[in-house]
């Protein structure tokens, strides 16, 4: 256990000394300053307490009642923070930045010179990979807590209303990061290079996005002939490869009490998404270990 923790602890200790860490911290501070600090409340002429941004009332669509405006302050804060902080910055930009910043978490243990230090110890190569991956998750969780937790806390302090639901995006963004980072670890084991690892994980994310495109293009599923086969093939591919792009949607449905009960979404779809993501996470780590065990350093 000592060895495992020492290897995992290498990751935060190492990233802390790099300039990218401080840039990420500045970005998080900037996002919090721009998105959460301007929040406030104001009682409108019709005696309703409304959420404001830089003093102006925020008009958000009510997800529970399409076509209507959100009036409840707590619900407004939830929707606002979930959309901007949770999905856009947490699961979007945050995951991307994490994949780039932590691309060398596993590979740095195997690069020439480091492999000579780490491998001739009574520690299995698989232990090194899992420990370094968990170290990366640890750092990612820290940033997610800082970003999303910070936004929830600032919003509560500024409005006097605690809306904790967006905190769900902390594990969701970390899970999206985890699946992709595990995929990058396969590349790290084969070619110990942070760039290769970053390309592998970000590339897998882009592939997931690209194969989701037919769901975003109206009428794509109404095509016929060869095009229909292509769209069906892309859909199938999307369900086979890791689906980090679908995980935030799952969280959103859980928050909105629509688990397995949204348009085109059944409980079976939700369970498949959860199982497939967990399976890819484990499979990617297993493959990374297998590759590392069989190669010379």
């Amino acid at each position: 256990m000592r060895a495992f923790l020492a290897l995992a602890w290498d990751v935060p200790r190492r990233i802390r000394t790099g300039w990218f860490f401080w840039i990420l911290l500045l970005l998080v501070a900037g996002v919090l300053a721009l998105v959460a600090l301007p929040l406030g409340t104001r009682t409108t002429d019709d005696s309703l307490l409304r959420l404001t941004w830089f003093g102006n009332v925020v008009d958000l669509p009510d997800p529970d009642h399409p076509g209507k405006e959100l009036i409840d302050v707590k619900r407004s804060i939830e929707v606002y923070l979930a959309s901007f902080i949770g999905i856009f910055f947490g699961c979007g930009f945050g995951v991307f930045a994490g994949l780039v910043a932590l691309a060398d978490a596993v590979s740095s243990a195997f690069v020439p010179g480091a492999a000579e230090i780490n491998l001739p110890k009574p520690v299995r190569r698989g232990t090194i990979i899992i420990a370094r991956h968990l170290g990366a998750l640890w750092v990612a969780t820290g940033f997610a807590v800082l970003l999303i937790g910070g936004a929830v806390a600032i919003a509560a302090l500024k409005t006097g209303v605690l809306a904790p639901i967006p905190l769900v995006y902390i594990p969701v963004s970390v899970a999206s990061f985890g699946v992709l980072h595990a995929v990058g670890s396969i590349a790290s084991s084969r070619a110990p290079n942070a760039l290769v690892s970053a390309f592998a994980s970000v590339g897998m994310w882009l592939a997931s996005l690209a194969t989701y495109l037919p769901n975003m293009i109206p009428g794509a599923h109404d095509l016929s002939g060869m095009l229909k086969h292509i769209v069906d093939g892309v859909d199938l591919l999307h369900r086979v490869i890791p689906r980090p792009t679908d995980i935030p949607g799952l969280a959103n449905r859980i928050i909105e009490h629509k688990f397995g009960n949204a348009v085109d979404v059944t409980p079976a779809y939700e369970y498949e998404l959860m199982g497939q993501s967990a399976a890819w996470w484990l499979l990617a780590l297993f493959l990374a270990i297998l590759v590392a065990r069989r190669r010379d350093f």
Partner: protein
Amino acid sequence: MEAYVEVSGLEKTYPGGFFGSPVQALRGISFAVRPGELMGLLGPNGAGKTTTVKILSGLVVPTAGKASLLGAPAGEAAARAQLGYLPERALWPDHLTGIECLEREGKLFDLPRAERRRRIDRDVGRVRLEVARRKVKTYSKGERARLGLALALLPDPKVLLLDEPTDGLDPLGRREVRDLLVELKKEGRAILLNSHLLSEAELCCDHVAILARGAVVAAGRTEELLSTGGKEFVLKIVPPAKDDDVAALATVARGVKVVGDELHVEVGDEAEIDKVVDLARSRLLSIRELRAKRATLEQYFLRAVETGAAPPPREAGGRLGGGAPHPNPPPASRGEGVMPRPTP
């Protein structure tokens, strides 16, 4: 005595990739290092030294043959638990201090906190790492070498693989390391030293194995390899011997050669040197020094590598025979001669 390091018929072929042809780095080498022995693994670049050390440390998997540390196959956790390894090229964590590096190393060997502290204090003192509390990125090459040694010693290993341990050290530092190696040897550890500095190896290694083109071309006890078997002596005479003195001495020796102010005397056996000394004294020559002639390791190394085999066989025990390198030498013998001899 059971060998701590045993290498038998070890072969390694690296795949050549898509377009390259496979590279045979090791062609069936064999040797053994016993407790309390310090063996120098010598050879020119590309001879297979690093591959051998990497196999023993578990970094590379052999294609054929066996390599074991204390009976456990090299690469297994049980073998690595007994191994202290100083790599030639190491990326020490620059953001840590020397003490933090050693702490981390102790954790990798699962040492409890108190034991880690005790060993860190011991080894920092042992290698004289006076900058242990500074960040590694501020270390000089010599300080990094000292840190590497301290890291290799921390697990209290029974086997030490040291790749260029004196690299970057000044002459004083090199002497300290040599003294340390002798001390470690006396503690009963088996040490395999990989070095380009033949003078260093000659000073501290009691056994050497010379690799060339992936095969052991010479191996044995350093003293025996470099000795002339009691057949060549150096006489220092004052005043310098005149031509008629040399001619007279040549009558009782097989050959006499003047080299500077010394006489190099070749004799048939050790008893003959007494006759030479008696004759020199009868001619009123003052003998200031008499010593057995000994080749340097560098001379021996160059001959071995250039010919692809050990120098021609001599009668004295322990010497290696000449001839082409054996493609698949037998396993190390358990007798006095530690290393197998290439077949003449």
